[in-house]
């Protein structure tokens, strides 16, 4: 399932680099996904202000 490690020194980020896009998609996801919680909180706040 996992690609063999090819870089000089093994590392966490090198391991995430499993082939095209795996590492970068992982990083993008962890950056963008928490915006969901910000969205929820702000939605609740707006509803409270209106209600």
């Amino acid at each position: 399932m996992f690609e063999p490690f090819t870089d000089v020194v093994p590392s966490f980020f090198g391991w995430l680099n499993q082939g095209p896009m795996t590492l970068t998609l992982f990083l993008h996801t962890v950056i963008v996904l928490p915006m969901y919680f910000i969205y929820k909180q702000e939605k609740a706040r707006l509803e409270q202000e209106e209600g």
Partner: protein
Amino acid sequence: MANNYLTSESKKLATWYFTFAAILFGAQLLFGLVAAIQYVMPGFLFEILDFSVARTVHINALVIWMVFAMMGSVYWLLPDETGIETVGIGLGKLFYWVFVAAIVVVVLVYLFVQVGPADQTTIWFIMEGREYLEAPRWADIGIVVVVLGFIYNLYATGMKGKRTGIVTVLMADMLAFAGIYLAGMGYTDNISVDQFWWWWVIHLWVEATWEVFVGAIAAYGLIHMIGAHRKVVEMWLWIEVAMLFGSGILGIGHHYFWIGTPEYWWEIGALFSALEPLPLVAMFIHVLYDWGKQQGAQEAQGKEVSVVTNKPAFTWFVLQAFGNFLGAGVWGFFHTFPQVNLYTHGTQFTSAHGHLAFFGAYATILIGMFYIAVQNKNGIKVMKATKKSIWATCMIFGGVLGMTVALTLAGYVQVLVSRAQMGATWAGYFDGQAGIWFAQGMDWRLIMGVVTFIGFIILIKDLLSIGSATHHER
């Protein structure tokens, strides 16, 4: 410019910064011409003012004039945004003169001492020899002190007066801008570590903090020149901050492909920096959209006049939105993937991108700020374009675009011949340089450089005379 309508000390100080910035802008173009001539006539000023010296002054004057104009822009907009006079103007004025004096000394040493023996004295007093950060260490420390003073003024004013979204963004951005500079001040024997930290400064300046800075300036300009709605503009500004920093900070990876750093930077650099053009597209759309919206709203009220209160400045702001997208976005995207960058890295391709990106993203909007200062200094309500301002805009923008195209074509032949076919050796390098496309590209770059320089002279003439033209609304 006989009458000075400026009452704010902060704005008066801003005009000092703009004036010195314009002088350095001229120096940048002049030394760029020297370097361009040397590509065409290699013997020109050989062992008197060599290419390395001309280029050092060319790129240092570029960075410093922009830093000056950026600091000037902040001093300019602070009273408008916060509603109070800037705190610490005396300090600002003192540091202005310290900064100017330091730069004059640094440039004189570049020109007349040029290089030193291989010891730390050279690093401290003559030159650090790292592209863009050539300034000797004493000047580094001076810059940090001066910028800290500037940050103090910004924070003191922002905390005392009204803190708008624009001011909040600027406060965070300028602190990062100053802090990142520290990463480039050290010395190490290890060239890979050296370049790692060197990119922290160069990349995180021009592809992160400076971009956010121009976003804030553009927001200010839209509110003041076309009466755009602050809430809408500031919402856009926050979206731009999220997208610029979100892609730009880790986009630094595209500089870590080949300097000895691990292979995982290929992935990070490729996709994060591939997304860097997105906020630039957004900024372009945002400027045009707001303009159309404001104009439409006014025409709906039956008023058939332009909403723009400063034609030349607004022209430069729109050119910024376009030039940033084209130069930083498209030309940057060209060679940001490692598969492509393996062959384009360190060729005239980079140079083409550098010219259009620095100009499109930063020079344009800062020239716009010069015009805003001229308008207010002369108490003009609606400033119209003059023949000179139109000529200057066309010649400078056309000139830089022409240089970029010429350098791109030169870069093509370099990539194909020197890199892909010849494998980047000494012989490969000079075979590429001998290519007809390359040689003609360099000729055209020089011609377009001269066009740009003439445009600059007209621009200066216009900045000095447009205030007394009679066709403005006062």
